[in-house]
Every structure is written in C-alpha cells, then in structure tokens.
C-alpha cells in the first residue's frame, strides 16, 4: 500500500499543469466555472488542442493513439483538468465508441474511424435508448433489414427511433444498437451499427429539458441505408459491444476530480456569501456540516475508485463493481448542485436564459455563481437516470457482485 506520487509522477503533474495554463483558453475556463452551456466550438476548441498534443484519449492503448500513460498519470490528468475547469472531453467518441472500435472492429474500420475520432473531425452521438427501451435497453425495436442496393452492394435498411441522444444536433455520426434478428431472444439479434448522420432518412428533433437547454434529441431513422461494412463486430452480437461500452461508460461516470472541484467551488462561494447570522456561510454550522459530509463521502468514493483503477492496472477490466462508482458518483454530483442552490438563497429563483448577463452592470442580479444554480440542479438530476439508472445499477450489483 503506497499512495505517494513518484518523482516521475510529480514531474508529470507539473508538465500537465504548465501545459494547461499555457494552452487552455481563459474564456472557456470562466464559462465552465459558472456552469454555462457550452457551444459546439467550445468543446471542439479544447479537444483539438489535446488531439494535437496526443493527450485527448488518456485511456486508449498507444498503438491506437493513446498517450501510453499509467493509471496514476491518468488520475493526475483528470485531477488537473478538473482543477483548471477544463471543458470535458465528450465521452461519446473517446470513452464509448472508440474503445468498442479498437476492441471489436476490423483493421479497415479502425483505420477509417479511430484517427478522426481522436482528431475531433468526427463528432459522435449515442443511439442506444428508445422511447420504449430505457432501463430495459435490450427491448429496443429499431429494425435493420439486410437488403441489396441498386448498386449491388449489401446494406441494412434501418427504421426506428432513438431518444435522449445527447448533442446529436452537432453530430457527424451516430453509433446505434439495432435489431437485426427479430426472431432471436431479446439480447441476441442485436447489432452495433455506425450511421452517418447525413444519410437520407435521419432526422434530429430537439427535446427541451427542465432548465430550458437543448442538450438531448430524438433521432428518427426512416429507411436509412447503411452499408454493411459499417457494422462493428458480428451480426447479432452487438449486445457484447453494448455491454462492454456500458461498463466503460460507468467507470468514467464517477467524476471524482470534477466533484472535488465542485466542493472547492462551494467552499469559495460560502466564504463570501452571508448566512442568516450575517457571518459568512461557511461558518454556519448546518451548511458546514453538509459540506463536510459531502467531502467525506467523496473521499470514500475516491479511494474506492483508486482501488478499482489499481485492479484495472493489474489487468482486471472494469467489472460490475463500477456500478458502485456510478451510483455514488452521481449522488455526490447531485448533492453539490443542491448546496450551490441553497447557497444562492433568494437568487436561486431568477431565470437567466437569454437574459443579458452583463446588460446592466449598475443593477446586477445576484452573484454570478447563482445564475446557473437552479438550472444546473435540475439538469444534474439526469445523472441518476442516464447510463443505466441507479436502480438498474443496484440490480447489477445485486446480481453480478452479490450473486443474489
């Protein structure tokens, strides 16, 4: 048991810090810190800087373009990027479909998709959930029938509807689970397809969420012709890819470093905001207690994650234990937003969407941190729903870990 960083790790940390401070745009930092919505360009700007440096996909094997970092280095990376309020790298390409492609795809597919995924030239979105298939993902109905095109080539003709598709409005490609054998048992007969969003028959319709954001979409697929070579892995074996991807999704979902930054931010807010007593909020025993409890919970999660990472470094892939990280990680993220909203007091109520933030400096409306407090609180409710709801995660632990 040893928790110290080696001198090499310390040197690495300093290198990372220096790189971020020299290359991360200040404007993005401010937006990220205030919890503002990010534009497509914001995500891409930082993605491209990191792609150029070779740091955009910390967990990828070196031969596919990963930086070849140790798990400790990856840990340092996530700490440092969170500390500096870096825009997150979107998970759909780097954490989700990328690993599926380098694990299951043909050499041609790898060559075709991995470089552009790394560079940010392909923006991916995830076509998993359907209106009738949420927690029960395997009940998905989107149908893909084999046809021969007029050009004599083999295609899938895809029909169905995907939903909750995050940032599909910006996406170039979607990776989809589709049913290729309607007669097979529910988890068999599913295939994993990559679909160009520009294909005729693909329609994206916005879903507006509680805070007024346009973050998720419905994606309608109507007679979309998808070349057979866009299928990853064997036909009817897509569920293997799906499960592999979900386990990867879960391990990243703990968000320890981001939550640490969130608590730091709460401490900063509470050091200037005033409590009922006219003292700073951080001196209020009830508020302080909640921050302390949150920090302790986060520490427990951090060391649980470190143990998982150590296991992974020793060759154990992310297993069903990663559901623990998802449950605790999302609960902590949600509690952070609760405390920011509580700290906002009366100023949690104003709704700033489309409201000029700096329009009238003589008459500001509340402290800056309060402007997104309520919408963020509403928005982060999604974390215990997406990626397999926390109820489903508990089922996974009960079955796979406890053997119940």
């Amino acid at each position, binding site marked *: 048991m040893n928790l110290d960083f080696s001198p090499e790790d310390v040197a690495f940390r300093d290198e990372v810090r220096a790189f971020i401070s020299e290359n991360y745009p200040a404007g993005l930092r401010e937006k990220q810190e205030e919890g503002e919505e990010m534009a497509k360009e914001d995500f891409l700007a930082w993605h491209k800087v990191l792609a150029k440096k070779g740091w955009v996909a910390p967990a990828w094997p070196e031969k596919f373009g990963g930086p070849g970092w140790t798990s400790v280095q990856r840990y340092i990376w996530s700490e440092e990027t969170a500390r500096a309020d870096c825009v997150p790298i979107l998970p759909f390409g780097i954490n989700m479909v990328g690993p599926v492609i380098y694990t299951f795809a043909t050499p041609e597919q790898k060559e075709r998709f991995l470089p552009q995924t790394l560079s940010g030239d392909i923006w991916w979105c995830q076509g998993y*959930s359907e209106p009738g298939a949420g*927690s*029960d993902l395997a*009940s998905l109905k989107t149908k893909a029938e084999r046809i021969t095109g007029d050009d004599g080539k083999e295609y899938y003709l895809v029909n169905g509807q995907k939903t909750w598709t995050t940032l599909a409005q910006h996406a170039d490609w979607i990776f989809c689970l589709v049913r290729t054998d309607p007669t097979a048992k529910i988890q068999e007969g599913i295939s994993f397809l990559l679909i160009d969003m520009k294909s005729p028959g693909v329609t994206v319709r916005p879903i*507006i969420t509680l805070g007024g954001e346009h973050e998720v979409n419905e994606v309608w697929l109507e007679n979309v012709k998808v070349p057979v070579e866009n299928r990853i892995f064997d036909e009817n074996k897509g569920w293997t890819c799906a499960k592999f991807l979900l386990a990867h999704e879960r391990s990243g979902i703990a968000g320890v470093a981001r939550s640490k930054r969130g608590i730091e931010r709460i401490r900063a807010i509470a050091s200037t905001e005033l409590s009922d007593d006219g003292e700073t909020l951080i001196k209020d025993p009830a508020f302080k207690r909640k921050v302390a409890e949150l920090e302790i919970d986060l520490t427990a999660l951090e060391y649980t994650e470190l143990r998982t990472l150590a296991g992974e470094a020793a060759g154990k892939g992310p297993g069903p234990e990663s559901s623990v990280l998802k449950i605790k990680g999302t609960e902590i993220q949600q509690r952070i937003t609760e405390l920011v909203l509580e700290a906002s007091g*009366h100023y949690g109520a104003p709704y700033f969407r489309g409201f000029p933030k700096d329009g009238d400096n003589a008459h500001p409306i509340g402290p800056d941190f309060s402007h997104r407090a309520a919408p963020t609180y509403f928005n982060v409710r999604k974390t215990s729903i997406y990626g397999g709801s926390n109820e489903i995660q508990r089922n996974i632990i009960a079955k796979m870990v406890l053997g119940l």
Partner: protein
Amino acid sequence: MDFNFTEEQSMVRDTVASFLQDKYDFETRRKIVASESGWRADYWKAFAEELGILGASFSEELGGLGGGAIDNMIIMEEFGKALVIEPYLGTVVIGGGFMKHSGYAGAASVIEGIVGGTTTIAFAYAEPQGRYTWRDLKTTAKKEGSGYVINGHKAVVIGAPFATHLIVTARTGGAQRDAGGVSVFLVDKSLPGIVTRDYPTVDGNRASEVYFENVSVPADALIGVEGEGLPLVDKVIDEATAAVGAEAAGVLRKLHENTLDYARQRKQFGTAIANFQVLQHRMVDMFINVEQAVSMTYMATIKIDEDAATRAQAVSAMKVQIGRACRFVGQNAIQIHGGMGMTDELAIGHYFKRASMIEGQFGSVDHHLKRYESLSFDTAA
C-alpha cells in the same frame, strides 16, 4: 377535534378547483408563462368578480366573506395543484395580512381594492445580503417633512411585475441587523424613483429587483408603528409561509399522483414499472411525505393566530417538513419518470421546479430548523 371544512370552505374549494380545471390546464399555463405579461389579468378579474375568492379570507367587517387563514390554505392548495402564477400570495395573503394586523387607517379602502381585483401587491422584503433574516435591512426610510424618503435595493420581489403596489420593509432607525427600527410601507409602484429590473423565475413566475432612489412617500404610507414593524413582519411572513406550505401540499399531491399514473402505464422488462417493489416502496415513501406535509400545513394553519412564539414554532416545524418533502418527492418524481421527467414537455418537471423553489421560499430547511431549535430549546431553558 375536527378536521372537516365548513360548507362555505368546501364551496370555495369547489369553485376554485372547477375554474382551474376548465381554464388553467397545463397547456394554458405554459402559454401564460411564455406570454409577454406573464400572467392573466382577466383571470385575476374573474377571481374577484366571477369567483369572489379574493375576499374569502377577510372578515365581513373588512368587506370580505368572513373567512380567514383556512380559506387561504384551501385556495393556495388548489393553486398549487394547477401551478397558478397570479399573485394571490402577495396580494391577499401578504397584502391582506398587513391590512388585517396593523390597524392601518386606510385598510378598508386597500382591502376594497384587493377584494375588487384592482389592487395587486408584491412584498419587497428580501435584500441581497440578508438571506432569511428579515430584519437585516440596508434600505432606509428617512423622515422628511410629513412623509418619508426611501432608498435601497430589494431583491427578487416575486410578482412585482404584476403589482400596482409594493409593501416595503425599511429601516427608520437602528443598525442594519437591529430588531428595532424596522418600518413597513405601502407604496404605489408608479412613484417616481422606483426602478425595477424585471425577469422570469425558474418556476415560471416573474420577479423584479426593485431599486428605491430617493422615493418620497406620504406619511400615510407607513403601516403600523414607525420603528416597531418587525413583529408585524414576522407575523405576516409566518402566515405567508403557511400559505406556501398549503401551495406545496397541492404541488406535492400532483407530483405523487402523476408519478403513480406514469409508473402504472410505463412498461419495461415486460411489465409496468409500478410492479417493481423498489419503486413501490419509493412511491410509498413519497406518499408518507405528502401526507406528513399536509398534516403539518393543517397544524400550522390552525395555530396561526396563537401567540407569536407558538405560531413561529408551528410554522417553522411545518416549513422543515414541507422543505424536505419538496425535495424528496420532487426528486423521486423525476427519477421514476426517467428521461421523461427531464423534459419541459411533461407537467411533472414544472411541479418539480416549483417544489424546488418552495424549498427556499421564506426560509430553507436549515433556517427553519434553527428557528425551531431556538424557540423550542432556548426559551424552555
């Protein structure tokens, strides 16, 4: 022991419920929220003339129908079920409350305006620095000639964009956080020197930052006794808090009811999700929270006219329960709705947003726990 409503009270409930059912469905409310004015002045007129509910909680001597706090409770609960925007709380509960309890000389004519629907009131009590300490006031009212000159900044004045009048707390003496020196004024919102910055709120209402820049008000703007307004403010805010608790009861009932409906019709793994025991228990816990919150609303309303300490303790106990129920029931309603709960399209999210704002309205759970502790333990020692 009797928790039944009188015939008159039941009639008020039925009248309000049937109006809202016909004219305040979710789609109508969505349009109201999105409209330029943000409320329906014609509905307000209907509340006054057609329904006659704006006078329900005033005694007959004051020109009302002879009811009181229970009528406010009934109306606010129905308003909660429909997420009504119109300023009943500010105008009738708070504005009316100040008129009832202050011995204000002009009360009769103000109440006439309230009951008739021509006077709408917003309560400018909060300030940017004060959080939930109502006596923490930087706004000042200086005596000048026979009247006063008000200067200061009032924060997040809910319903101010709809109001003809403001009730303003200001300091006529004492230091910023002193109990003494607090005075209350009824101010015509169109007076020169009142600058408002209007904005929507996250739960569909409208509010303003209100700036008083050398606003001259006449001597008869003063409500109650100069410098001795704090007990009056505490009383009216306790009444308003109880009314918001009643609104919460309506909101909570809908959160629970809509969640049961959804769980019964949403199928996953070949069955309605209502059949999963883990969700059944969750919905039972939601139900318990709703019932406890409703009980506390009754308790606080029944005790609202008792002595200040009893009233304050009852209201704080209620608000703790309400605040916790709003969070637990609201969050779980969204969770059980899954992705659908996150959309702007379903009503459930809008109830959740209102519940989330009620949590902090007139004091958070922490605030009221502390107040309860100080009333319940410190005075007993």
